[in-house]
């Protein structure tokens, strides 16, 4: 723990020795950095949304599927999670290069870029959504769905009005996890990025291969503060929620005693 804080102190320290905010200013004027940030966010958002929708649907289907096929699909699903990242990255590169060549023979120009990044990110994100949603579906009290139908819902309405609420926490967790992994990913992006846009990670990687600019420290500082802010807010929100819940149940206890 000390090391973590220490290491960031250090980077910050280096940033502030003499240079002050010049590098921050520069960072925010650096078109490439801003573009990378934008790319990272777009790729993360788009891929997480698609992964969440597809993963949720997949989980629902898988839950109903017969065990053999399900086992096969689940094994495939584990692959992106447990396969070494570099192999995932490399295999995507091979896939997209092959696709590019094949499409070129048909006269279609296909370039590495957002599309490849997003496709790759979706693929390594979907498993996280599935693994988050499946347990929720398994815990889902089937009688809730039946109750909804009993009360007049057709199957689709039952899903929208009941099932989705029940598995919401899984879906949200899957989405957030996707978002995080997608933002943080370097290896897969490295092998699937295009010439036009780079993700932040790829850009940082390139930066580490160049003359070290204090910009990178400024960037660390900015990201660190952003992350800290997000985490603290989430934590505070959670704590408040918890308190509220506790109060709620206390009230209820009081009610029971009466």
């Amino acid at each position, binding site marked *: 723990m000390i090391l973590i804080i220490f290491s960031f102190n250090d980077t910050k320290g280096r940033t502030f020795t003499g240079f002050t905010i010049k590098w921050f200013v520069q960072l925010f004027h650096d078109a490439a950095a801003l573009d990378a940030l934008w790319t990272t966010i777009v790729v993360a958002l788009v891929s997480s949304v698609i992964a969440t929708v597809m993963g949720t649907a997949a989980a629902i289907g898988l839950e109903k599927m017969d065990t053999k096929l399900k086992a096969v699909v689940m094994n495939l699903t584990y692959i992106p999670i447990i396969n070494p990242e570099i192999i995932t990255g490399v295999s995507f590169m091979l896939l997209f290069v092959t696709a590019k060549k094949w499409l070129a023979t048909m006269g279609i120009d296909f370039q590495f870029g957002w599309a490849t990044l997003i496709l790759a990110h979706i693929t390594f994100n979907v498993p996280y959504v599935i693994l988050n949603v499946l347990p929720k579906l398994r815990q889902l009290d089937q009688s809730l769905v*039946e109750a*909804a139908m*009993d*009360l007049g819902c057709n199957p689709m309405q039952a899903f929208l009005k009941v099932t989705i*609420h029940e598995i919401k926490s899984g879906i949200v967790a899957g989405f957030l996890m996707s978002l995080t992994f997608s933002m943080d990913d370097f290896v897969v992006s490295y092998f699937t990025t295009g010439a036009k846009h780079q993700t932040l990670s790829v850009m940082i990687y390139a930066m580490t291969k160049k003359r070290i600019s204090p910009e990178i420290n400024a960037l660390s500082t900015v990201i660190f503060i952003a992350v800290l802010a997000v985490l603290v807010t989430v934590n505070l929100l959670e704590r408040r929620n918890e308190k509220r819940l506790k109060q*709620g149940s206390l*009230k209820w206890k009081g009610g029971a005693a009466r």
Partner: protein
Amino acid sequence: MRNDIIVSLKNIAAEYDGERVIDHLNLDIRNEEFITFLGPSGCGKTTTLRIIGGFVDPVEGDVFFDGKRINGLPPYRRHVNTVFQRYALFPHLNVFENVAFGLRLKKMPSEQIQKKVRAMLELVNLAGYENRNINQLSGGQQQRVAIARALINEPKVLLLDEPLGALDLKLRKEMQIELKRIQQALKITFVYVTHDQEEALTMSDRVIVMRNGEILQSGTPQDIYNEPANAFVADFIGESNILSGVMHKDYLVEFAGVLFECEDAGFEPMEAVDVVVRPEDIDVVPLEQGKITGRVEDIIFKGVHYEITVSGHGFNWLIHSTDSQTVGEMIGMTLTPNDIHVMRKMEEKK
């Protein structure tokens, strides 16, 4: 009165994974009746209910509702609502919205919903709980919400699958009374499932005793308790002494090596029969007055009565008595003819 029958199951059979769990079941449920399925776990009570509710399709036979065949009609098209065993309340909705669920689906105007939901919550004694979260309710309150939610759709038939199974004894007793009251107030048909015989006897107009997907007996609680169709029903419906006996002739049965007068007739001469004697029907008398005698093996105090085990005549007799005895002592027992229930031996079903 053909008209009076609201649900009718004709020759129903149901299977799970090719295994038959309901076999050629026939049953007519009368309008406004409180009918209870009673039977051990796995006997097919839930399945029968689900057939009526539309969640299970019978592989054979027909389901009629109000005279119309409704096989294949999906649950959301049936005028039947269900109260599920574990309530199955929607945790993301509050009490009001849970109850309003069915009405909202029907796109009823908001004020009307307000009014109806309030009235319904009133009925189940939950007025003022509208905005509570589901998980802020006790088990019994949740149960009431589940009932309100089902009833607000004004079903002709309400199906209740062990609705009180998850409640503790005290609450269960309370809710039994509550349910009965609601049923009588609304004059709706209740089809009720339980495996608790006391509950069945307490609440029902008619009890259906099931075993292995078959109906063993159907009748009023008193019928079932006092005239069980066979030893299984007798045993299931209350604690019993069940002995093998032989019917010497009408009104004379031998069991435990002794001849007894009885009130049963119509058996073959010397037919092997089951004899059922309720523990509370056995009178303990001084040793010399006893028609049967035995040694007191065990006494358990049960509050209202003592449960006494007496061995004698090759049988362990269970006796409920308000007087205690001394373990090890020899006592006598007597039976009057109407304490003795003679029934045909049940052919064992595989």
